């Protein structure tokens, strides 16, 4: 196995992007860092800058205001990186599908600037922390 991918699996640092979520998924993401789940066991760390990140945790269907920001954050993340769509809205815009302010789901916005982006989906409203850990493990085992 490539040493870059091997070490990426050992310490994925994540950056949290909210593109118009109702804050429900965000609370569940913060829940991952609490003593009950403690994802630092797997080397997962929440970082403050997209330049340090290996994975973007995107929550919420992408609004017209957030779309250019999401693209900019994705461009600022060094490769190799993985995009996680956390929650029903980020995966498929959910109940906001016909909203006037929605540009589209996260994967559509990201693929406009990088067709080869690695995108993983964790559906749920909000997804349970267990589901997120399972999603991250599955995504990292296929790359």
């Amino acid at each position, binding site marked *: 196995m490539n*040493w*870059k991918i091997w070490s990426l699996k050992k310490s994925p640092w994540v950056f949290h992007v909210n593109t118009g979520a109702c804050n429900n998924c965000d609370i569940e993401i913060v829940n991952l860092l609490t003593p009950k789940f*403690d994802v630092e066991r797997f080397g997962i760390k929440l970082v403050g800058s997209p330049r340090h990140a290996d994975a973007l945790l995107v929550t919420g269907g992408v609004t017209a205001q957030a779309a250019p920001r999401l693209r900019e954050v994705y461009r600022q993340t*060094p490769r*190799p990186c993985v995009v996680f769509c956390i929650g029903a809205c980020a995966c498929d815009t959910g109940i906001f599908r016909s909203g006037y302010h929605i540009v589209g789901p996260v994967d559509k916005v990201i693929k406009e600037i990088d067709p080869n982006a690695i995108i993983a989906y964790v559906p749920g409203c909000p997804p349970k922390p267990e589901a997120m850990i399972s999603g991250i493990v599955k995504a990292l085992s296929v790359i």
Partner: protein
Amino acid sequence: MIEPLQNLFWILIFPGFLFTVVFGLIASWIVRKVSALVQWRVGPPLLQPFYDVVKLMGKEILVPQEAQKIIFMSAPLVGLAGVLLLSTMLWRITIAPETLFVGDIIVAIYLMVLPSLALILGSSASASPHAAIGTSREMKLVMSYELSLVLAFIVVIIKSDGQLNLATIAKQAPVFSISGLLAFLVSLLCVQAKLGFVPFDIAEAETELGSGVLMEYSGGLLAVWKVVQAMMLVALPMFLVMVFLGGFGTTGLPLVWGICKYVLILVLIILIKNTNPRVRIDQAMKFFWVYCGIALALAVVLAIIGNNFGISWL
């Protein structure tokens, strides 16, 4: 022919780069593990800091478009050079005390400032507004703790009859006196600020600046900064052990005792880190200049009196 090779071996492998990096990464694992235990978590595995550095080495290096590229890319190497020289010097003096030169404590004080200066240089060259705020905070922080740190070492120099070489200073333990204890406590807090740990992590400020000074660094350059921080975690507590607590031995029981002193300082630093909220920059400046300044002025007076009248406990 042999001597240059031997010097190169000292700098790159045994007491120098490789040894200090491995030691430092293990120390940074201890910091993360103990923090996790204090917060009732399990914490990362032993090799986690190694995985982090290897991963960062394999990532893409992004340089901001408007950055001063040469300064931005060379600043981490300047910091690395400073801390590498410092740690090699400290280990060499411990292993072979006859290699000392007069005034090496002053050289060590200069080398300790170098990583902070490199950090200021690199982040101000990155053309990012967040990093600019971080830079100004780091600059003010350096100005506030540097005075207290030098005053604390002056207390030690007075107590050792004006000796300026570390090997001689390391033979005694000034911490067993009132002035030495005051100086030790203040310099422990200064080391906390130098390492950028919590009550004084004003420049890195994850919550509002998004890791501030390091914000624009990615990939290999960030890995170099992580290695510099890990090496500082070895060099600075070790310097405190040598100056205040009577230094390391090289064989048997004195060596174990020296390691115990190092671990004691490390655990004190971690506990201060985990039990305090972050202070504002003006609070930090007031703390170091007013309160620590007064305590150290008192310590200097006590040390001079104690030295002149031969009272060793003052």
